[in-house]
């Protein structure tokens, strides 16, 4: 090492600890400032008010025969409305589903009407109707007539949207 370097390494101030303190304070304040300033930008990426205002959907239940289903849009997501036959109700009450066991009665308000969010809980594809439930075309998850996952990569049952019956044949979702 040359002498030049040595002189550089010698403290330039009388009390180097005060310098350290100043550096730390500057760093902390700058860091906190960056974090605080980035909040509006991060937050701006969340759903805007007009998106949030799509929150409820009214759906009419007329014209759906037993065993038939209908898809309505809620918050941009498909919602399946299935009018179940007596057979289907019987089978569903008897079973607990598959890998995410749940009683059928916890998933419905009226036994004939099953209302679930039509997005596969695996990666969000829309399952298609099959004879005994739904089948997801993307990676092959199977759901029963209560929207419970039977097998496939989906981790949980089809989600239940919040909804209520406003009359015999009309529901409000959301």
């Amino acid at each position: 090492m040359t002498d030049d370097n040595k002189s550089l390494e010698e403290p330039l101030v009388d009390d180097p600890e005060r310098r350290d303190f100043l550096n730390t304070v500057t760093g902390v304040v700058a860091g906190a400032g960056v974090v605080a300033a980035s909040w509006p930008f991060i937050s701006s990426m969340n759903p805007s008010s007009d998106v949030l205002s799509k929150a409820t959907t009214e759906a009419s239940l007329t014209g759906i025969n037993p065993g038939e289903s209908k898809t309505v849009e809620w918050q941009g997501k498909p919602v399946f409305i299935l009018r179940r036959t007596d057979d289907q109700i019987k089978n569903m009450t008897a079973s607990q589903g598959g890998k995410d066991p749940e009683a059928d009665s916890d998933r419905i308000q009226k036994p004939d009407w099953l209302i679930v969010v039509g997005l596969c809980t695996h990666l969000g594809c829309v399952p298609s109707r099959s004879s005994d439930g739904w089948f997801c075309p993307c990676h092959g998850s199977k759901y029963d007539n209560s929207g419970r996952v039977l097998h496939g990569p989906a981790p949980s049952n089809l989600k239940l949207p919040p909804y209520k019956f406003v009359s015999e044949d009309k529901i409000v979702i959301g």
Partner: protein
Amino acid sequence: MKNIISWIDRRFPLTSFVKKELTEYPTPRNLSFWWNFGSLAGVVLVIQIITGVFLAMHYKADAALAFDSVEHIMRDVNYGWLIRYMHSTGATAFFAVIFLHMARTLYYGSYRSPRELMWWTGQILLLLMMATAFMGYLLPWGQMSYWGAQVITSLFGAVPFLGDELIIWLRGDFTVGDATLTRFFALHYLVPFIIMAVIMVHLVALHSVKSSNPSGINLADKDNIPFHPYFTTKDLFGLCIFLVIYSYFVFYQPNMFIEAENYIPADPLQTPVHIVPEWYFLPFYAILRSIPDLLGGVIAMTISVLIFAFMPFLDRSKIPGGAVYRPFYRALFYVFVIDVLVLGYVGAKPPEGYLVFIGYFATALYFGVFAILPFLAKKEELWLRKKGLPPELEALIQSEEKQKAERMVARRKAKRARK
């Protein structure tokens, strides 16, 4: 002209920079055509940026207008079809070139000391490129675009605790929607410029450690030749061949890499029967699908991309160079390449029947190759030693070891001195 240059030179090191980094830049004389892909990738990036800027002049990032605006580009804009096909084929070309570039690095061991930083900046570039390609794929707003984005953003739902909020934050909506489209467009335009910046770092690193070469051994100064005219010519020749192949696809097979399904406008209520990602994501997609658990699949897929970064740690053989002098490593390389092709095939097909099991097996093999590498490298070294290394190689290894030991001693001394 001369006056202008000398005016600049007095204020900015133009001539000396060009001389040092370009014309007289020392390059190994034995580079094969496998060393063409780096500069080729740079050219493809430029093609993508130019065509992309012109597409952006006519494209509308709005869920109601996007699909039609792409058709408007195809039918009404002068040469719009050409610019769009150049851009869509360019994406494929970019990945093809980069995969070959990576294969060369793996085969010839170019990721090994002292080029680890080149490999890691390259890894960052690959990730940025994948992100750009993925976001760009949403923009035509066709069925495949839509459901590809839906599935990939859903992957973030596997993040513990924050998952659901994270997905909504990424999409700006409860499902992929208008908000998602506009932000993807903004980022698709931005990231290529970040890629440019990282390429600069990649190149600065390259010009500090210099190119590797097929022998895998650092050459003596006398074995280097100036970059210009030898490699400018060679790169230009390679570029011409590339352009012939590229033009064939642009003009004769432009739809080969566009799914027919993507000519149907996005429909949030209807998933296509069979969704597939773009070909360059297929092997990773196959790995995702082969793990029958969401979180596990996402982790496996993430690792399958990032694991390349660990190559300098996994491969600790003392035998210099790449696969040329290392029969075990070479065998492993080919097993890996074939495995990736098999995974690509599995990823392209619906997950049915025996393909599911091939998927399991190929996924296990993919990670197995990386897991076995450290042991194999050791075994191989012993085996080669037993067979007898050529004396030059032995001398080379010894000198490397000595240098390493000297560096160690120097470091320890410095430490003691500081105390």
